[in-house]
């Protein structure tokens, strides 16, 4: 990992932990941003962790840019040797894979896709060497995923699956971005999954939809009083559901009686590296307990 510091204009320091994605880079980013938050440096206005990088926004009238950068560099050594364990939560996300809404949308934008004769799921299954779509969905919904970044638009989680690199699902983005994506689409681009928090443009392959809103600008849904569900460091477990459960969940949300399944969890990167399957099994037990 080679960490690189740069200014983004006169109000941001941008820190690229590593050029490539890895859980090690994500943990170092999370650790450094936590250190910045705890240090309560005067002039810092935004602390934004990302997948393998982070960004600090600051007021140069309060702290000089070079001093700001020096402060950040001061956290690097400690972040590298920090214990790579976090207290977090694991969240169950029901998904109706191969749903009618993303299917209708992907058909409208077929000419922007690498393989106009296949659906996004069929294409993703093929380029990742799965025998069929069912096997692909099973892998997508098996191992949990880290929320490695929240952003692009309000409350949208970027997710990174907790599997060895050779098992990572990788798909290119659409050749040209779509102008429409259904709200709550579960998507994938590069090595990252996402859930589209709002309807709009998008370039990720579309695999399904969750019935569970993750952003509520009015704060009316019980579990979305803070408007957004996800924070960087959360862990997601996707779970395949059928149309009946999808409809029941939508009805429960509309009636205000839906409560998402969320459990407190702790995650150790060292444990995971030593035994990915065993560590994931323990995480899922926490959720099912």
């Amino acid at each position, binding site marked *: 990992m080679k960490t690189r510091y*740069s*200014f983004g*204009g*006169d109000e*941001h320091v*941008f820190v690229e932990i590593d050029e490539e994605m890895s859980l090690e880079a994500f943990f170092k980013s999370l650790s450094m941003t936590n250190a910045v938050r705890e240090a309560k440096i005067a002039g810092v206005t935004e602390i934004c962790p990302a997948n393998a990088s*982070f960004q600090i926004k600051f007021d140069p009238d309060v702290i000089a840019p070079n001093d700001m950068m020096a402060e950040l560099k001061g956290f690097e050594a400690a972040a590298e040797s920090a214990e790579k364990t976090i207290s977090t939560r694991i969240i169950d996300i029901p998904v109706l894979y191969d749903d009618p809404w993303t299917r209708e949308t992907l058909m409208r934008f077929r000419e922007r896709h690498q393989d106009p004769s296949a659906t996004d799921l069929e294409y993703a299954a093929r380029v990742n060497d799965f025998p069929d779509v069912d096997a692909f969905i099973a892998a997508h919904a098996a191992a949990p995923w880290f929320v490695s970044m929240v952003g*692009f638009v*309000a409350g949208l989680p970027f997710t990174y699956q907790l599997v060895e*690199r050779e098992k990572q699902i990788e798909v290119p983005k659409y050749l040209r971005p779509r102008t429409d994506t259904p709200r709550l689409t579960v998507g994938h681009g590069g090595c990252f999954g996402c859930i589209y928090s709002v309807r709009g443009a998008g370039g990720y392959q579309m695999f399904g939809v969750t019935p569970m809103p993750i952003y509520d600008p009015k704060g009316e849904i019980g579990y979305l009083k803070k408007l957004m569900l996800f924070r960087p460091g959360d862990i997601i477990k996707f779970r395949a559901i059928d149309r009946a459960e999808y409809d029941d969940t939508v009805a429960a949300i509309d009636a205000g009686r839906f409560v998402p399944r969320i459990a407190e969890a702790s995650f150790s990167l060292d444990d995971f590296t030593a035994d990915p399957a065993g560590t994931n099994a323990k995480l899922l037990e926490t959720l099912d307990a």
Partner: protein
Amino acid sequence: MPEAARSFKVVKPGLATTVQDLGRPGYYHLGLPISGAMDRLALIAANRLVGNEDGAAALEAVFLGPELTFAADALVAVTGADLPPKVDGVEQPGWTAFTVAAGQTLSFGFLKGGARAYVAIAGGIDVPEVLGSRSTYALGALGGFEGRALKAGDVVPLGTANGTGREGASIPPAARRPVANEIRVLPGLYWHRITESAQDGFFEDTWKVAPEADRIGYRFRGGRKLDFVPREQPFGAGSDPSNIVDSCYPYGSIQVPGGTEPIVLHRDAVSGGGYFMIGAVISADMDLIGQLQPHQAVRFAAVTMEDALKARHDETARLKATVPA
């Protein structure tokens, strides 16, 4: 006068008229951009003219002004773009406080220069604060008037004026910045990803504002395509040479998808994504972008951090001197 009477009714909404103040900092890590006026100095000037706090909520009208009928007498000022205000058809001076009486209609002539006009009303626009701001973030349907641009028929509530505004107060032309033909940029971020000749070309070429220019970002076209330094793409970055592992996007950052059309992110920025950036517009010049019209030609000028801080200092001084006379 009853509070409910302090309002205006939208007869015609204009193109994309939104409620904006100085924004909603602190939520960028959750994908919520700062929002707020694209031309902050113009918003502050309009507020000062009518006796409001600098950060009171006002209207931002882009290219085409709205038509508003007032329920009660109000002191109004219009700043920013040269979009001539009219009261019952009678033209009023810009950057000057004037009265709109109960029952009268505020409308606008055609745009003569700039892109965004700010309409401040004494007492400010009294929509509810969301996460500490009244600004509209339309992409997230958050804040402002019902999370969206104004529509015909909306009745927009106003706060109570503090009485310090004075009809005829004006801000002299010397205090205003002309529409820019040069935008200053601090190179950085993923600047090393393009070749030296592409780095030179970016600053040599003349760029034109593309029609896709809004509160999220301004797209430019017309300059040469940027060539990339060859590399094997890192894991997770995606296959195009302009792709990076998805990262945060600074405000003002300049991304160039595919190396062809630069996009400068503004107050409603998408907070992150997978395109490399060649640097960022300096804070002192962000207001200027909000006043650029489509098809307008600009050049980007490379500056140092020292230059950027000097420019910021100069803008702070200009803002201090922006007082009604």
